[in-house]
């Protein structure tokens, strides 16, 4: 097994040993799903049409924005990065491995929701599974890219949680997964479009990929990747 593959498997195991990742990627989204799934489907039976998508957007947004930054801060805002640099391991490896590992954890969580939701709440599975899974992959990638900025940019480890929550709350509240965005006041509706959750949700419920829905996610992703590269270079330079 080469270094990269070993590193990926190891990071996956480290995430499973970390309480933060388990809580944010699995425990809280499942709990939220159990409670809100029951409420949504009772109060608004029409929500059964999109419950899988909305619960998945919540899980991905939470797992990425709240789960990933502490893992990155542990590497880049501590002496762990020194050990990497001193022992010939590229500094970017930590960023890539934690992102890949989180990506697969979120994919697993989404799969669990996809399987359980129809059984638990008799909800409809997405009509266009290929669009749903494609949209999900894009949403996870974009959400993780934003979470990476928090993990690399925030200098104080304790502050990562604050910045994560500051992004997480409007992301979920204004994305349309709780209530239709048309009901929101105009400024909130516009603000919601700044976050990938709104676009990801729209992508996952549509019948086809449209440029109109895709381009904001692509722009956000590219901008986030560029910013991460700059931040990484800044961390590397002593």
């Amino acid at each position, binding site marked *: 097994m080469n270094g990269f593959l070993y590193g990926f498997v*190891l990071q996956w195991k*480290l995430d499973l040993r970390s309480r933060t990742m388990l809580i944010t990627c699995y425990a809280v989204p499942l709990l939220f799903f159990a409670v809100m799934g029951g409420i949504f489907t009772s109060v608004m039976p029409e929500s059964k049409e999109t419950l899988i998508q909305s619960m998945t957007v919540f899980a991905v947004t939470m797992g990425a924005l709240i789960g990933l930054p502490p893992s990155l801060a*542990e*590497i880049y805002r501590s002496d*762990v990065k*020194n050990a990497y640099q*001193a022992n010939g*391991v590229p500094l970017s490896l930590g960023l890539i491995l934690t992102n890949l590992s989180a990506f697969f954890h979120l994919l697993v969580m989404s799969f669990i929701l996809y399987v359980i939701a129809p059984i638990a709440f008799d909800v409809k599975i997405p009509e266009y599974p290929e669009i749903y899974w494609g949209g999900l992959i894009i949403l996870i990638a974009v959400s993780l890219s934003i979470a990476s900025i928090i993990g690399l940019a925030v200098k104080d480890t304790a502050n990562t949680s604050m910045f994560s929550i500051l992004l997480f709350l409007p992301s979920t509240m204004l994305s349309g997964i709780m209530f239709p965005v048309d009901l929101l006041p105009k400024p909130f509706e516009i603000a919601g479009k700044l976050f990938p959750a709104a676009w990801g949700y729209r992508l996952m419920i549509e019948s086809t990929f449209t440029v109109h829905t895709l381009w904001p996610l692509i722009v956000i992703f590219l901008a986030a990747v560029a910013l991460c590269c700059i931040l990484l270079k800044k961390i590397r330079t002593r």
Partner: protein
Amino acid sequence: MTNAIQVNGLRKSYGAKEVLKGIDLCVRRGDIFALLGVNGAGKTTTLECIEGLRKYDGGSISVNGSIGIHLQSAALPAHIKGLEAVRLFSKWNRTNADASMLTALGTDSIANQQYQEMSTGQKRRLHLALALIRNPDIVFLDEPTAGLDVEGRISLHEYIRNLKGQGKTILLASHDMAEVESLCDSIAILKDGEIAFQGTVMELTEKIGKHYNIHIQTDKGTEHYESDDIGNSLLAILKHYQEKNTMIQDIQVDRGSLEQHFLKIAKGE
């Protein structure tokens, strides 16, 4: 024979503060070399510049051989186990290092122990194992025994001597003068970003002067004297006690410790 490390006119500033003011250093192949200095003298900056981890503003550095680095401030993810760390760094560096690295350092017990559960000594040994994964020619050790208990220090010193026995060059930064005196072939003392002394411990003693401490114990207590002329000083002291009709119970004479010499140069005491 080329030197393992040659540094000429090394300069480094942090903002307006010049930390290294044109340092010249020469480390012979196979030596254990200590870089000494009070806090803030520039030891870690010098080491990190030589290791290639820190950019410098001027001068030249020549490192002849592969390097392994044990940093003063290094850590690993809290949940990683000892053997997993060795395997991760080993695979990334395409070496075959495995549990034997930990066995060699007498730390088999940490193979399945998470980093957050390790003691300071175990962490230091793990980082040393990681520094040696690439079987380097030159090993940098920045405060390797800081925070270790006596037993840990002794066994790590033994291991460092073994490394020298394998022909490795060791560049050590330390505050522990006893450690330096017992381990090192040569030393350099940094003072205010400049090399105040470079040579062997013996040469340092010669430079400072033939400094002696004389301890005289009488029935009235112990008195201490310092002298550069042991013969005449002893005669004078004995005569003084004889005239006072005081019974001398014990006389001890020692050459000043490296610590005293270091303080004279590094702090001008």
